[in-house]
């Protein structure tokens, strides 16, 4: 037997927590691109914000502690696009290799 009441880790409303500490920060270029990618995916009807949230919720509390907001977004976008059949993992792997070969900087990566 377990005393688990069925409430999942992400459903945090009412949990004990410290004060809210607001902070300002700018977004990196890759983070803006991830945000834009989500807009494109939902506009094209590939998946919805519900799918985005579902995959993040399924990552569990450890991932929530150890990754950033847009780390989780890009992982979830990929998960949803794989499920939607937009591309295969083989196609993704080949593309990642091809992009990596261009170089490590934005300028080099954008050269093709």
């Amino acid at each position, binding site marked *: 037997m377990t005393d688990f009441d*069925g409430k999942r880790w992400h*459903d945090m*409303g*009412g949990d004990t927590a410290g004060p809210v500490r607001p902070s300002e920060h700018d977004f990196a270029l890759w983070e803006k691109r991830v945000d834009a990618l989500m807009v494109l995916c939902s506009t094209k009807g590939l998946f*919805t914000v519900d799918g985005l949230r*579902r995959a993040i919720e399924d990552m569990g509390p450890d991932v929530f502690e150890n990754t950033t907001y847009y780390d989780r977004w890009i992982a979830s976008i990929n998960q949803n696009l794989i499920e939607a059949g937009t591309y295969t993992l083989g196609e993704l792997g080949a593309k990642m290799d091809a992009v990596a070969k261009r170089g490590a900087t934005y300028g080099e990566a954008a050269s093709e």
Partner: protein
Amino acid sequence: MSDPTFVRVKTMMPPGHIRTPAYLRGKTGWIERKLGPFGNPEQQAYGLPGDLLTLYRVRFTMAEVWGDQAERPQDTLDAEIYEHWLEPV
């Protein structure tokens, strides 16, 4: 103005993507307004077409939600909840 329609949030806890917050389950509030039909996120989250369901804005008192711990018991909280999560009181 007509009497408010009171509703209770169902206490069920199925696993999966659910927009109804756990802290409101079993709590009673009243319909603040009907927001209209929207696709069921519990289906759309899995790449399925969502059945069109009525979404309601439901108002709760802080006393109802947090009990004796409410700092301002008369303040209210609004939550948008789909029809299949609400039962008549």
